[in-house]
């Protein structure tokens, strides 16, 4: 590692990257400050700082209480959607990915490219499609869930397939069979244990994607079934800077730990979020 630091080109590259990194990180710092500071502006007006000394505390969590009161329903709805997305992705995506990775059958390549397709299609275009195709049940909560599955299943399937292709699962299975293990025994004791890592990382990613999904949620929602990102948009357009910041901090408070965990699990290299903005 020390040698690396002396290699030519390291310092300018590092300096450039650090500056870019700080630029990328700076808005998050401002948002967190804005959510906690008791000021009308950005926490930079000197009067407010001065008044902070007169008994009135400069820091406050009151905006969080306000956001909780206002958007509790949407928060819980988004958590429910995200958890159900994870569950359904595990139930549908893991078996599907296993079949796609281990079997050859007519239409296999077609199915794989269709499953991965949503990652490279504009979310707004697909949302319009779902909106029209299922106009009769618009506003039903399960339709939003189905839309989320469209954007989360590709990640689960791809990570399961990548994991199965990264080691010689066929050789392991053959060895297990030669030892007398039946189909379900091999699945339980050979294949699934090797998939555990990918399944955990993919579940976290699925949770994040569903939690932050905006296009489908925004076009399909009704006042009764509103997701938190859709509520965030309403906050940005109608509420004050502090309330918006507090809501954003709540949003980030869920996403950031999950993303850190994905990075920590080493999934970061394989994880590519291609669409969804």
């Amino acid at each position, binding site marked *: 590692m020390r040698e690396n630091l002396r290699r030519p080109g390291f310092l300018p590259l590092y300096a450039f990257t650090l500056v870019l990194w700080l630029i990328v990180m700076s808005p998050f710092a401002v948002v967190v400050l804005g959510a906690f500071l008791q000021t009308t502006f950005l926490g930079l007006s000197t009067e407010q700082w001065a008044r902070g000394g007169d008994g009135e505390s400069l820091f406050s969590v009151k905006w969080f209480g306000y956001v909780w009161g206002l958007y509790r329903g949407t928060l819980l709805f988004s958590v429910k959607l995200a958890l159900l997305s994870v569950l359904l992705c595990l139930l549908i995506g893991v078996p599907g990915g296993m079949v796609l990775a281990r079997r050859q059958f007519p239409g296999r390549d077609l*199915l794989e490219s269709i499953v991965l397709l949503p990652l490279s299609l504009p979310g707004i275009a697909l949302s319009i499609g779902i909106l029209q195709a299922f106009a009769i049940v618009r506003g039903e909560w399960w339709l939003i869930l189905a839309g989320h599955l469209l954007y989360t299943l590709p990640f689960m399937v791809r990570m399961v397939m990548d994991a199965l292709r990264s080691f010689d699962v066929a050789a392991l299975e053959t060895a297990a069979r030669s030892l007398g293990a039946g189909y379900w025994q091999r699945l339980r004791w050979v294949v699934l244990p090797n998939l555990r890592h990918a399944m955990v990382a993919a579940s976290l990613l699925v949770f994040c994607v569903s939690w932050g999904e905006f296009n489908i949620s925004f076009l399909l929602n009704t006042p009764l079934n509103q997701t938190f990102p859709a509520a965030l948009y309403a906050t940005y357009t109608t509420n004050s800077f502090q309330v918006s910041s507090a809501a954003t901090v709540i949003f980030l408070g869920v996403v950031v730990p999950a993303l850190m965990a994905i990075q920590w699990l080493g999934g970061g290299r394989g994880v590519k979020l291609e669409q969804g903005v």
Partner: protein
Amino acid sequence: MEAAPLATGAGPRRRAWELLLALPLAVVFAAFLLYPILTILLTSLKPGSGVLHSGGGGSSSHTIFSNYLELFRDPIYCEAMLHSLVLSASVALGATLLCLGPAWLFARYEFPGKRLMRAGFALPMSLSGILVGFLAVIMLGRVGFIPQMSQGLTGKAWLSGAAYQLSGLVIAYLYFEIPRGVVTLESALSKFDPRLDAAARSLGASRWQRFLWIVLPLIAPALVATFAVTFSVSLGSFGVALVLSKRFSVLPLELFHQVVAITNFPLASAMAVFLIALALALNFALGRWMRRHFSLRHA
């Protein structure tokens, strides 16, 4: 020879019913991807139906491609399309060039704090566009952080309200494209063989000569892939523009207005078909180009 049946996994006793495990996956994508795409294809061929629709008043002037004709003839939509293409292209170019530095650093060097840095770069990727738009407003809005700070420090509010101008839109797009570019480029650059560079150095090539003649041709496919990915994502992005754009319209935003404000679903569908076709064509062209490029290299 003996390894051949083993490599296919199932051996002599293939279980046909195992394929049924993929059935739910196929059903979900048939119902919620293929059927909706088919629906918008068909809807886009119907006469326009918006509350503000002024397309002739009757079905007499309607041909099946009239929505597409309107899309390509109406100056407003043409401008939005042009904006989309130019904005996406410039953002993709900027992101590809800017992320070359971090991607090279992450791919070639080990240093303390690398993990934290990479995690930080990965963060904006998973934020929805509206959130990135909001971040742009708090940094570059009329009372944003940067104008206020510069007001306090220099007496002049630099970049006040920039978020709502074209520059703010470009910065916000770059904000979520640079991380995406870093991830895409890093995985490609980590496959670059440093011995080639070392060989050129031992032959007396200068740093710029090596970059121009050794490194650049080898990483060109990765650069093209990064450009294509960031271009395609920018083209379909709509949350950022929804929050920031006041006058500068992009095609996804026009599409959204067609649905929400004018309820002209046929025209909105034509726009959606156009966006999907563009994304598919880009994807297809990139795949072909990459395959040909690599097969030539290996030949």
